[in-house]
């Protein structure tokens, strides 16, 4: 069955090319094209370039500067999902203006809001603009520019509750964004149960679902969401004394702080800042958001479908790369486990134990944040995700493959040995094809699991299906529709995958 052999070898070559090419720019720009980053989508190349940035500062003419932001906070920053998927907003305009004045080329890196501080501290980004307020706690670990905008906080609640003051929130369930300044407001609330969520859209959904009574959200955002969810209302609360407004954040001791302050000062004086603010907060605020009617209305997804569907490519590419990497590495580990060399056995056993014994999400986040700090290599989100998932999957697969190898009749090995076939050839062409046939159902399960677990990678900002659903949720203020939509896509992907596996299995049974 030489076809099978060829198939296996092609797969092996494929993984080598892919993993080998993982770090090269071709693969990266391929990945980058699907991300929800601003600009031409070559953020990954941009991030890669950033590793050499320090060296390049002296000689390069147009230096690249990387900004971190959490684009779920319109009008400050959001993903233009109906357009090209770029990140737009007031903060972006200001950042572009400053970068332009200082002679930098701006690259934008998107991530969850509560990952921004870590990104600054690990110098993954040069600065952060994400409607971030100045607080004493944050000043401990990062530097701030002068503030460029002062927002006020509001209480968002259902139309019938319509809370107008903090006193009314006694004993209620209150939502607030994790890591935001609004957290401080909730600390002053007595007797209220506070739930900290990662994203604003989640809080909106929780109020609509009746699991929260109210949320503390700042004015511009509240306006945006109550427009797209007419059953919600917002009311201003008086500004607290220590409120210093929004500012640009830098790593401690960054040389950029002074430069940025200088340009901000200019912008305040010459009216540029006011012009940008007016553009984003003015009443002529572009097209009005589609209002959802009823509990579920898929009409709100109009115009977003193609943006969501492009996530399929990222999800599939990611699944393919991590499954292949996991399979090849898992196969190598399984060989370690059955080898007679003790250190290899120990290594494989400890490896499996560690990767199976810790949460995948934790591994993912660690790889993404720790790699630049420990190795100096600025790993991209998709690389970190592929690495974490591949390594994790390999731990599970190594056990499966080991079982498959042991299930192959010992006589097969002896026959191959007696023919003078070397160990490697024997494993690849004689033992593995037979082992794979027995473990095919388990391999398919692992692939199915990978497709679904790939949704975790949205956490570090990879624009997969899940991330895109979050973006659309932020954009429309509707949670259920985009989630149900991608749920259906995931289900179809898994169905297609299992049907393909069944076909493959039937082909492999030809020799029976």
């Amino acid at each position, binding site marked *: *069955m*030489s076809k*099978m052999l060829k198939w296996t070898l092609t797969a092996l070559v494929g993984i080598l090319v892919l993993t080998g090419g993982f770090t090269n720019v071709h693969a990266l720009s391929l990945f980058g094209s699907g991300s929800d980053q601003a600009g031409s989508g070559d953020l990954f190349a941009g991030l890669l370039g950033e590793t050499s940035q320090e060296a390049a500062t002296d000689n390069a003419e147009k230096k690249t500067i990387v900004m971190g932001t959490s684009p779920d906070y319109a009008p400050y920053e959001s993903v233009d999902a109906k357009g090209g998927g770029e990140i737009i907003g007031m903060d972006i305009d200001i950042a572009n203006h400053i970068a332009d004045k200082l002679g930098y080329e701006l690259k934008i890196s998107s991530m969850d809001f509560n990952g921004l501080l870590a990104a600054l501290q690990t110098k993954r980004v040069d600065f952060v603009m994400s409607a971030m307020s100045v607080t004493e706690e944050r000043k401990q670990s990062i530097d701030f520019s002068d503030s460029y905008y002062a927002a006020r906080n509001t209480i968002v609640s259902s139309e019938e509750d319509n809370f107008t003051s903090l006193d009314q929130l006694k004993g209620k369930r209150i939502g607030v964004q994790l890591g935001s300044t609004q957290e401080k407001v909730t600390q002053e609330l007595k007797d209220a149960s506070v739930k900290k969520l990662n994203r604003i859209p989640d809080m909106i959904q929780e109020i609509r679902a009746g699991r929260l009574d109210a949320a503390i959200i700042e004015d511009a955002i509240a306006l945006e969401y109550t427009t797209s969810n007419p059953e919600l209302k917002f009311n201003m609360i008086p500004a607290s004394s220590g409120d210093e407004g929004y500012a640009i954040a830098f790593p401690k001791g960054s040389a950029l702080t002074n430069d940025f302050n200088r340009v901000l000062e200019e912008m305040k004086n010459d009216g540029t800042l006011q012009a940008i603010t007016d553009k984003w907060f003015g009443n002529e605020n572009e097209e009005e958001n589609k209002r959802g009617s009823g509990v579920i209305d898929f009409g709100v997804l109009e115009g977003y479908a193609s943006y969501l569907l492009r996530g399929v490519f990222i999800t599939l590419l990611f699944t393919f790369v991590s499954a292949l990497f996991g399979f090849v590495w898992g196969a190598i580990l399984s060989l370690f486990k059955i080898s007679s060399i003790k250190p290899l056995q120990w290594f494989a056993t400890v490896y499996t134990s560690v990767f199976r014994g810790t949460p995948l999400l934790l591994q993912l986040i660690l790889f993404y944040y720790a790699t630049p700090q420990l190795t100096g290599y600025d790993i991209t989100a998709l690389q970190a995700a592929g690495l974490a998932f591949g390594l994790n999957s390999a731990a599970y697969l190594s056990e499966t493959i080991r079982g498959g190898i042991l299930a192959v*009749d010992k*006589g*097969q090995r*002896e*026959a*191959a*040995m*007696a*023919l*003078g*076939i*070397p160990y490697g*050839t024997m494993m690849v*062409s*004689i033992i593995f*094809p*037979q082992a794979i*046939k027995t473990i095919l159902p388990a391999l398919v399960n692992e692939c199915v699991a990978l497709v679904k677990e790939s949704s975790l990678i949205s956490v570090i900002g990879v624009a997969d299906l899940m991330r895109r659903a979050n973006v659309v949720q932020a954009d429309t203020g509707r949670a259920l529709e985009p989630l149900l939509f991608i749920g259906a896509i995931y289900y179809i992907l898994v169905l297609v995958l299992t049907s393909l596996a069944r076909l493959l299995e039937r082909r*492999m049974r*030809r*020799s*029976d």
Partner: protein
Amino acid sequence: MIDVQHLSKTFGKLEVLRDISTSVSRGEVVAIIGPSGSGKSTFLRCLNLLETPTEGQIIIDGTDITDPKNDITRIRQRVGMVFQHFHLFPHMTVMNNITFAPMKVKGLSAEEARTKGLQLLERVGLQDKADVYPSKLSGGQKQRVAIARSLAMDPEILLFDEPTSALDPEMVKEVLAVIRDLASTGMTMLIVTHEMKFAREAANTIYFLDGGKLIERADPEQFFRQPQSERAARFLEQVL
């Protein structure tokens, strides 16, 4: 051609082979017989290092194969082996079973290997089965393919480990015919077998093993008519 000196093999505390010394000359056909557990198979498997001898030396054409400095796969290419349970590769067609090793190990082109494969299949009378999978073959056919597979590597020595023990009686004949045919071409062969009639007719020499020892080494006619040892006589009494 093969020179065995003081060969011993133990599995843990169990002594399977005890101090066997013998030599096989080119073109000689040796039938190895003896009660089960006497070490026949282990002896055979030592000759291509499927088992590593505990003590002693095995010298094939001047090369000491027990010397760890020598490349085992190289040695095995010169010593073919046919197993009781055939061990054909189930995921490959008959032709690929035969051509795989010559192509991968000896570097034959696909065309060369196939031409040779067809010749070998003709020799074992299975040229029409080239493109079927082993699961479609009868036991006797499988064993003939296994013989063809071994021959494809042009071995100097061929080892048979009970080649007919797993076969239905009506298939024993076709396999033995192939082996007999090989014997007539001057191939050096060692055959572990329970087929006494076959051993008597096809072999030049009989080895009688018992308790891990080479008890008797004799001409077939003489051995079957008048075994020298009392143990061999008792054994023959039981099986004939």
